[in-house]
């Protein structure tokens, strides 16, 4: 018995020496980054981190964040959460003593868990791409230290509802991933808009995850076609979207298919871009927008992360980054503004500054409403036959 206890205490002791103790550095602003750099949706995670890096490099070239008259260099502490909520929180916990603010997470699922941890600690958090409503406002409670630069899922759902009306759709088939807060958020909002915008959801096809979708896709295709829809809504990420669009198009469905910002990048390196004719999606920014700010951002991104275009035998990065890179870039500049206004690195002051901020970025200007969500517009984009983007409307 004593042997076991002494070994137990032994492990404590040895592990002690393997980790450094607390340290504090006052002359640097450390931003903790939590993003999914492996496993699922890692291309989003990487682009977001690229956006952060681009902004931080630029800011450091000009001296750094301006805090209380002094210029402090900015450092990024990057942790991979492997698209898992518990890992995100654990990684955050390992750096929480060192950092001054959090950038992340990238997808809704991890962002919700992270937001609870940050809010409990009073740590300011800005997510560039977490669109789930629950990230800032859950169960009637506001998480006051959590903000975002993107729009929220219920807003996206309403935009798609408006779009359905714009296309005079009466019968809609809705796909819903019950395993993803993101998908559920948009799908539910779309379904709720049925009476107001003049359509009925004749069929809702639910699946728990991508594997289930693939298994059931044959059945779903039959059901979709049998429902004779005017519009098919697929609010999910690119892998799921490609599965659905490919199946529906090969089965002969020529009608409108649409979705939310998770569609971003869906035709990059895809073999059958022609499937995406007559499909539409809502997003935060139109990359071919000729306004100077936007054009400059894309030029800078290309110059900094110039990988050759996607091809089969490489983890290709596309030349045209998704809108998340732009939102991430804006998130860093948002912090720059906030730290300047607050005049200190103190968490509570930064949060106060964020709440009252008016910010003008690449993705447009924003202020935060009572639920810490930005008020922004959403352009709807569509595709040309070769897969390149085309502007449709702003709704």
């Amino acid at each position, binding site marked *: 018995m004593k042997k076991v206890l002494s070994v137990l205490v032994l492990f404590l002791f040895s592990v002690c020496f393997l980790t450094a103790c607390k340290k504090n550095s006052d002359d640097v602003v450390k931003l903790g980054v939590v993003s999914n750099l492996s496993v699922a949706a890692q291309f989003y995670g990487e682009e977001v981190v690229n956006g952060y890096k681009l902004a931080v490099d630029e800011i450091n070239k000009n001296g750094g964040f301006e805090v209380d008259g002094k210029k402090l260099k900015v450092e990024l502490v990057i942790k991979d959460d492997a698209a898992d909520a518990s890992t995100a929180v654990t990684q955050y916990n390992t750096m*929480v*003593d060192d950092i001054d603010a959090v950038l992340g997470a990238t997808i809704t699922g991890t962002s919700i868990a992270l937001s609870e941890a940050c809010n409990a600690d009073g740590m300011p958090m800005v997510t560039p791409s977490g669109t789930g409503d629950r990230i800032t406002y859950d169960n009637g409670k506001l998480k006051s230290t959590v903000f975002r630069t993107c729009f929220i899922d219920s807003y996206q759902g309403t935009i798609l509802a408006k779009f359905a009306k714009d296309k005079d759709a009466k019968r809609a088939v809705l796909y819903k991933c019950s*395993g993803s807060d993101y998908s559920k958020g948009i799908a539910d909002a779309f379904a709720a808009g049925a009476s107001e915008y003049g359509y009925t959801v004749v069929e809702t096809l639910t699946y728990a995850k991508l594997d289930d979708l693939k298994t059931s896709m044959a059945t779903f295709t039959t059901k979709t076609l049998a429902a004779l829809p005017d519009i098919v809504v697929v609010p999910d990420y690119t892998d799921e979207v490609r599965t659905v669009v490919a199946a529906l198009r090969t089965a002969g469905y020529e009608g409108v298919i649409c979705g939310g910002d998770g569609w971003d990048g869906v035709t990059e390196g895809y073999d059958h871009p022609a499937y995406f004719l007559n499909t539409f999606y809502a997003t935060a920014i139109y990359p071919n927008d000729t306004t100077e700010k936007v054009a400059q951002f894309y030029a800078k991104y290309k110059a900094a992360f110039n990988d050759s275009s996607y091809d089969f035998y490489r983890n290709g990065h596309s030349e045209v980054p998704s809108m998340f890179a732009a939102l991430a870039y804006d998130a860093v500049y948002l912090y720059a503004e906030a730290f300047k206004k607050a005049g200190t690195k103190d968490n509570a002051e930064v949060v106060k500054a964020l709440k009252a901020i008016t910010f003008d970025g690449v993705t447009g200007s924003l202020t935060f409403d009572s639920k810490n969500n930005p008020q922004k517009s959403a352009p709807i984009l569509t595709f040309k036959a070769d897969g390149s983007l085309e502007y449709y409307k702003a709704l």
Partner: protein
Amino acid sequence: MTFKKLLMKKYSRRVVNLISCILLISMVTLITPNISKAFTTIMITICINVLVAVSLNISAGSMGEVVLGQAGFMAIGAYSSGLFCKYVPMNNMFLEYLICIVVAAVIAGLVGFVVGIPCLRLRGDYLAIVTLGFGEAIRCLIENLDKITGGPSGLTSLPRLLNSSNRALGGYGAVLIAITTTVVCVGCIYSFMTSRYGRAILSIREDAIAAEAAGIPVTRYKVMAFTISAMFAGIGGAMFAHTIGSIYPSNFNLSKSIDYLVMVVFGGLGSYTGSILSATILSYLTIRLTNLAAWRLVIYSLALILVMIFHPKGLFGIKEFSMTNAILIVPGKIKLLFTKAQDAKNNKKETIIETEEVEETENNKMEAEDEEAKEAEALEEDNMNNGGKSDGK
């Protein structure tokens, strides 16, 4: 009397162990106020993994069956405690934690019992597969019953008693609670497994038919071991829920079960100290190397394959680690290694006759060392068999 002979006396072993305990505890107490949050997070995770690995060692190690569903019991413990916290809000966090632990243990134990009775009629591969089936079925059930359990979106906003940011406990209160829970549980498990019930379970592993012939009700003990294993895995799950504050069914998938099985096998199937050490090392590596993600798993799998092929017994085989044995055996074995290496060198220089003489004296020395080492090992076996009780020999 040489120091070594002194050490071999039973009473001095206890003294040495006691002294090392006290030394380590005092060092830890001195260091703890200065540790950072990063470290406390890692330590709490280690505590949880140690507990679940030790619980798995009961069924996989001492009972000798491959169990691939331990994460399922962890999930039951985590969700029971989570649902309890959601529907019965309490003000006193300590009390809530204690009740959660008990609730998790009871429910997980119950499920273990219910699952164990039909499953333990199977042996070997079939048992492995059916436990895999149950582990995954539990996870799928949790996912599908989303009205109750929140489904794939998980249960969030749970009280995070074991989280280092918990202001109510100060910086390291959470760690101490976690360590206390783990130590108490592991202590219970160890004393159970060295009692006569534990020895009965060991005998089932060695030869179930002989055990049955000797009058041990095999099924009863197998179900007992399985239930207790499930119980403590449930406690581990409750601790997990209290650390992160949100639990998802994807936390408890087949990969998790396999992670724990690997920890137990690495440490040596049947060795509790082995499980503790390997759980510590592997959890630590997992957290530290997360940034390597896919590469980490590649290295991990390669290492696993190599260990399985070349040293399948794991770190400690079925024996336990002990301070006094470390002092007695290890220097002897190291000397053996050195003398063998020296032999190789000497053989090249000297003549055959001289070599033979040298070899003889060397061999005598080696034999003496060997004997000492064997004595110590025999004493160790004795100790194990007597369950740590001394008879003053």
